[in-house]
Each structure stands twice: as structure tokens, then as C-alpha cells.
């Protein structure tokens, strides 16, 4: 009986730890949509799409390359590895053909930055507290 309960707790922990690793893309609440294609999201985080359809400039926020949230975001939502994004950014930054994203240190800074900039896009882990901020989550579709 005790063993069963321990097993149950272990399963619950496993399931909940899974959900900790689910990441979500967030944008400023002024963006009037809740879906983006994977192709568009990839191109935006590669710094290759420069404006939203209404003409507002896109501002991309990311966390540091080795931040676990950044790593999971790249793998699960973009289907890429952090080093691939880093290569694309560096190629643009150091040949003058483009720019890199704005790197932040914490999820809290990310939420604040996106609430403050109407052209912003970024990501958070789904456990982050986003209440009382003018941001909305976006679903990535195929």
C-alpha cells in the first residue's frame, strides 16, 4: 500500500515536471491574433521577418543561450537547437547583413519587456506568472 502510494506520487511528480518544461510564445496584447505558423515563428526568431502585418516593427526577446527555458523553447517550439540560432544571428551580426535579438536574463524581465513594447515577441515557461501584464500567449500551428 505504501509502495503504491509512493508510485502514485512519483507519477504525479513526473507528469507535473513535464508541464514545467512546456514553453509558450508570448506577444504584446495589442497583437490581435492567437496563432502563428511554425515557419513564421522560426523566421522571426532567426531575425529574418522585420515587421508585423500592420507594419509595426518586430522586436525579438530571448533568454541567454544556456538558459534551460531557452533550450527547451528552441527544441520544442522551433524544432531547432540553440547553437543553430546562435549561428544564424552571428552570421548576420558580424557580416552586417542583419541583427541579433535582445537577450534578457530572466523570465520576469521578458514579461515586462513584452508588456512594454507593442511589437514584441518572446517566450516563457507556462508556469510563469503573467497576470496583471498586457501580454497574450500564441499557439504555434503547423
Amino acid at each position: 500500500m505504501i509502495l503504491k502510494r509512493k508510485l502514485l506520487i512519483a507519477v504525479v511528480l513526473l507528469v507535473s515536471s513535464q508541464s514545467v518544461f512546456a514553453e509558450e510564445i508570448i506577444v504584446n496584447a495589442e497583437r490581435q491574433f492567437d496563432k502563428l505558423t511554425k515557419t513564421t515563428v522560426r523566421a522571426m526568431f532567426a531575425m529574418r521577418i522585420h515587421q508585423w502585418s500592420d507594419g509595426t516593427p518586430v522586436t525579438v526577446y530571448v533568454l541567454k543561450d544556456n538558459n534551460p527555458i531557452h533550450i527547451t523553447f528552441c527544441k520544442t517550439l522551433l524544432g531547432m537547437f540553440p547553437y543553430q540560432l546562435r549561428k544564424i544571428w552571428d552570421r548576420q551580426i558580424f557580416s552586417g547583413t542583419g541583427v541579433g535579438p535582445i537577450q534578457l536574463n530572466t523570465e520576469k524581465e521578458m514579461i515586462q519587456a513584452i508588456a512594454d513594447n507593442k511589437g514584441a515577441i518572446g517566450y516563457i515557461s507556462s508556469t510563469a506568472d503573467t497576470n496583471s501584464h498586457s501580454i497574450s500567449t500564441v499557439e504555434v500551428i503547423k
Partner: protein
Amino acid sequence: MRAYLFMACLVSSSFAYAENKSWYDDILIHGFISQSFINTSDNQFFGNSENGSFDFSELGINASYQLLPRVRLAAGLLSRQAGAFDNGSPRFDYALADIRLFSNQHVSSGIYLGRVKNEIGLYNSTRDVPQTRDGLFLPQVIYFDKVRNALISSDGLVIYNNIYFDNGTLLMQASTGYPLADKNVEYAYMGNDWQGNLQNDHLAFSGMLRYEQNGGQWIYSLTGSSFKIDFDAKGSDTIAAPIGPGFNSGTMKVDYTVLSLQYNAEKWQLTGEVAFENVNYNDIGGPLAEMDINSIGYYLQASYNINTRWQTFLRFEEFQLNKHDWDGKKAARNNIKVSQQLAGLGINRAPIPAQEYYSRSWVIGTRWLIDQRFMLRAEYHKVHGAATLSPRENEVSSTTPKWDMFALSLSYRF
């Protein structure tokens, strides 16, 4: 008094800026600095490497500024100390205006105007930035340091068009401009610094087709560049053989094509590139009359990410100056014959040996990202052949065919 007033105005205006965002807050600045140590068993590469050379350092700073919604300005300054190739004097690596003509969620296209890096292979556009290379040196069999400046960038315009398909991204570029012709180019294509000069008054053309499938899991790339450089023979250049080289003024036409393939997985990266170079000498005559170059260079590299900080790689690379005369056997035999004939006339000229016509090497290396800014690299090269060495640093008739190289570098970026 006037000066005070001026100062006061300045101070108050800077306070005013501090409240709102000022224009210079939007300037993005990045840079890098790197110092290497090179030790070769024989031959010289980037300085007096047989005794251990610190003569390879790279320093760069660049800025990007969004001037208008559709116009961005960018410039990069580079100072590079590299043995006899580069003395560290700073120059504009690129300086361009990026004018966006059209952009939506499926396509973006525009023009780069100014000095723009040429897209050659996967790495040329950022070849002097240590953090963007997959080794301490780029494979010399494709990214020759001895002719770097003719291919590195051109002054002109580039039209670009990127298309975002669900399956991947297609990047296209077509460009025209004037190549940069300097002493390194003269040494590489004409074997010496002659009295005459190289002129770059012909427009060069280059192009790129690059497809990044599935977010860059597979990258396929075709790049090419075609340029002409005039040689104006002067003074002793025109003295006939065997006393002088017997050159006339004429033109060199160079075509350079690179095919690249890369596979990127979480742990493994596999890269292969092959380059074809054709050089035709027109009217220059002298020893170059029958020296048209048809070279091939290629490498295969396997990199393994041990974790996000540590990476190791193994690479094989080969270069053949004449793909119809593998390992320069025929050329070397001919050179010996010519030397013997000259000796009969009382002129001593050592023959150029076979190793000057090829290079084959195995390279093993490792990279440690100490943090996001500092990086340490170490690599070991086992080389057979001397084609990647420059006559600026080595006497071509007396290079050692089998040599080893160890190199170490510490780099910082911001």
C-alpha cells in the same frame, strides 16, 4: 562665456535625451578580440611559427543602426595581424546600407549597397570572427588565407531575396562590385611582388543559392564568384627570360565555385564543402603563359557537441592546384628539367618541388565556451604538402613536405 553657454546647452540637451530614448540608444554594437599561438614542426604559417608565433590576432568592432523603417546602416572595422599576410592596420571589413524593398511573413527582399562581404561557401562572410568558425582556422583548402582579399568582399551592390517555405528557407543573392586586389593576391597568383601593380577596374559578379531545410537541419549551398584583375607590367618585369620574368601587361580571370552541405543535429554536425577554381592568364606571358590553374579543394568535418560548452571535431582536407596533375608530379618533373637547362646557361634557379602543388591534412580540435563571451580553442594539424603556405612566408623551393602544426587561441566577444 559663449563656451559656457554652449556647454550648458549640451548638458541640458543630454538631460532631455535621458528622459526619452535617444537616437544612439538604437545603435547595436558588437565586437570580438582573439589571440592565437601557433607552433609548426617545419615551414612558417602566420609568423615565425617554427619557434612558436603569437603573430595571429584578430580584433573587430561593428555597429548597426536602423535609420528609417526600411533602411539600416551597418559597418564593421577589422584589425588583423597574421604573419606576413596582415599587419593589423584597421580597415572597413564592410560598410553598407541595407535597403529593404519588400517584406512580409513569406518573403523579404532588398539591397545591400556599399562594401559587402562575399558569400563564398558557408563561412566567408564572417571568416575573421573566431566565434563563427568551426575551428581555429577555416579549412585553408577552400578559405585560402593567401588570396583572402580578392574574394573577401567587394564594393558594389547585392540584391537579396529570402523565401520562407514550410519545409525550409531559401536564401538568394546576386551581386556585382569591384574586388579588392592587394599584394597577397599578387603573391598568390603571380608568385611574387613584381614591380608592376594589380588593378581592380573590372566588375566582379557573385551569387548565392542557399537552402536551410527544416530550420537548418540540412543546409545546401551553392556560391560562386567571377572576377578579372589587370596586371600592369613595369620596369624590370618586362626583361626577357632567363634574366627577368618577361612579363607583359595582361589580365587574370578567376572563377571560384563552392558547393556546401551541412547536417546539424543535437550532438553531431557533419560538414562537407568542395571548391573549384579556374585561373586564366591572358597576355601576361612569361612563366605564367602556360600556368592556367584548375584547382580543387575539399574537406569533410565531423563535429561532436559533448555538451553545450565543449565540442570536438575531426577534419580531413585536401587541395590540388591542378586537378589534371594530381600531387604536382608532372609539374615537378618539368621544373627540374627547366632548372637543369638554366644551369647549362649558368643561371642557378632551384626547381619548385611537387609539395607546392598539393596539400592534404588531418585536423583534430576542441572548443570550450568558458561562458557566453570567452572561448578557448586548441587544434592539431598533420599536414602533407605545402600548397596552403604563402611564398611571402616561405621559400617555395625549400619547403618541408610533411609538417605538423599545433595552435591555441583565446577569444572574447561582446
